[in-house]
């Protein structure tokens, strides 16, 4: 669903993990395994990936799906712990391995990394480097992605909503 206004275009999605985050979009052309594909500094190091060298930290990272090893949960939780995680993750299909990383980071460190499922066509319409703000409510409920926003919408999130 698309809306537009002075603040920019807003897309609706489904929350896979509650949280808010904003940053420039990083649209990955191919799925990425966080394990083995992202180093401790948050840089994409997978030599098979066309966007090797991109930094994920602080970005709103969009990819169609996750890929590869189940160890990605721990690597994502560790990136959240060290403050080098993406600002938000946008997917076209639920990836439970990434959701688990976000759940554990919330459980242990009280930092909420939003993970949102968008319609595939909406995800495909996104362009890297667009400023974006993500709001995700309790899992399986609504979430929004606002593009070209100058400032992130301050959003209230129920900390028990996971």
């Amino acid at each position, binding site marked *: 669903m698309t809306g537009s206004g002075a603040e920019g275009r807003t897309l609706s999605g489904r*929350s*896979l*993990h509650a949280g808010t985050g904003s940053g420039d979009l990083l649209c990955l052309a191919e*799925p990425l395994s966080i*394990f*083995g*594909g992202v180093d*401790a500094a948050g840089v994409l*190091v*997978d*030599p*098979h990936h066309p966007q090797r060298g991109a930094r994920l930290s602080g970005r709103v990272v969009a990819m169609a*799906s*996750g*890929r*590869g*090893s*189940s*160890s*990605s*949960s*721990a*690597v994502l*939780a*560790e990136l*959240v*712990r*060290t403050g080098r995680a993406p600002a938000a993750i946008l997917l076209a*299909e*639920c990836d*439970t*391995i990434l*959701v*688990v*990383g976000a*759940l*554990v*980071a919330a*459980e*242990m*460190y009280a930092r909420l990394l939003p*993970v949102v499922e968008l319609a595939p066509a909406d995800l495909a319409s996104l362009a890297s480097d667009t400023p974006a703000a993500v709001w995700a409510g*309790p*899992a*399986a409920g609504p979430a929004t992605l606002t593009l070209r926003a100058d400032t992130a919408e301050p959003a209230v999130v129920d900390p028990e909503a*996971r």
Partner: protein
Amino acid sequence: MTAGPLRLRADEQAMLDGEHGPAVAMAMRVVVGVARAAGAQRLLPIESAHADGCLYHGIAGLEFTERLVELGGAVRVRTTLNVGSLDLLHPDLVHPDDELASNGRRLMDAHVALGCEPTWSCAPYQAGRHPGHRPAAGSHVAWAESNAIAFVNSVLGARTDRYGDFLDIAAAVSGRVPDAGLHRDEARAAVLVLDFSAVSRELLEVDAAWPAIGVLLGELAGTRVAALTGLPGDLADGGRTEDRLKALGATAASAGGVALYHVVGVTPEAPTLAAVLSSDARAHVVRMHGADLRAARDSLSTASGDRLDAVSLGTPHFSVAEFAALSAALAGGQPFADAVDVYVSTGRDVLAEARRLGYVEAVVAAGGRVLTDTCTYVTPVLHPRVRTVMTNSGKWAWYAPANLGVDTVLGSLAECVASARAGRVVRDDRLWR
């Protein structure tokens, strides 16, 4: 997934509410969070688990596991453990920094404190001194480690979704998983057919053909379920077919997100193609040829030239049958070249059986080293001078360039042995042309 909110049974709600203690409640919060994200309408009880959170990836995993221990957690079902970061039997083979040595050991110990079995293997399904951890066909389990997930689903016909760090141990402590993904009938049907009947039978007898098939499966299927036709195999042949499918599945899970595949006429859910085809879609059939296998094999080799510094075998962990094949290949031949470090990774239970049968002695006599409890691509084992590594593992070849910064050459077991002896890459490409 059909609409409708998650509904918990009364006993599950009680677990979530803390009536079974704070560790169970914490585990349930993770399981329920995933169930909601996945759109599950209920949870399922599980019969066993295989946890891979014992490999150290940083403080978060350690603190989560130690929190469960502090809160009095214990696994409710049989839970085997994947590789850790250390070789507890051969500590001299791993060269961890202080953090990894200390925290890696704490993480392994915390999993044992929760009641998990210290198997330390990515292939717990393999028999060694004891029978392997082999869930019955149709049973629901919570398995982690992408190769083990593909194996337990595809080769054993048990049902697991793609579990990973945290969710595996949360499922083991709560005894529940979301009723979602590959636990459900509709998700297990094939939507894609890869037909290998045009590939020469001789090429399919080369062990390196199977990781190559895995690359093709991973790249074409992604996360979808495929049926493979035209492949030989018999799961009752003493381990040969199992080892081929282990290599295939491990590579497909690395190159794609494959968690289940069917080999028609071989794997338990696929007595016929019709038995596994999705009923609501005409499956797309892709015919594969020998040239496709060769291109797939070559995609796993990043090295050019014949320089060779090390050989790594046993990813996933070497089986007794693979030890037998290696021991036979070594019999009566010359030892490995001094300049080539040869490693075989395996589980300690298979090690005990391989030692009893004399296979370990044969490897050591040739100059090889056997590593247990961990793996050469996940923890510091290789010498810093090592630049080019030959392996018979598609999974190792997929991950090692990024994990270790080395170049790889994928070869058959025979090519790995010949190369290790010659001190340079030796390949026999006749069947691949």
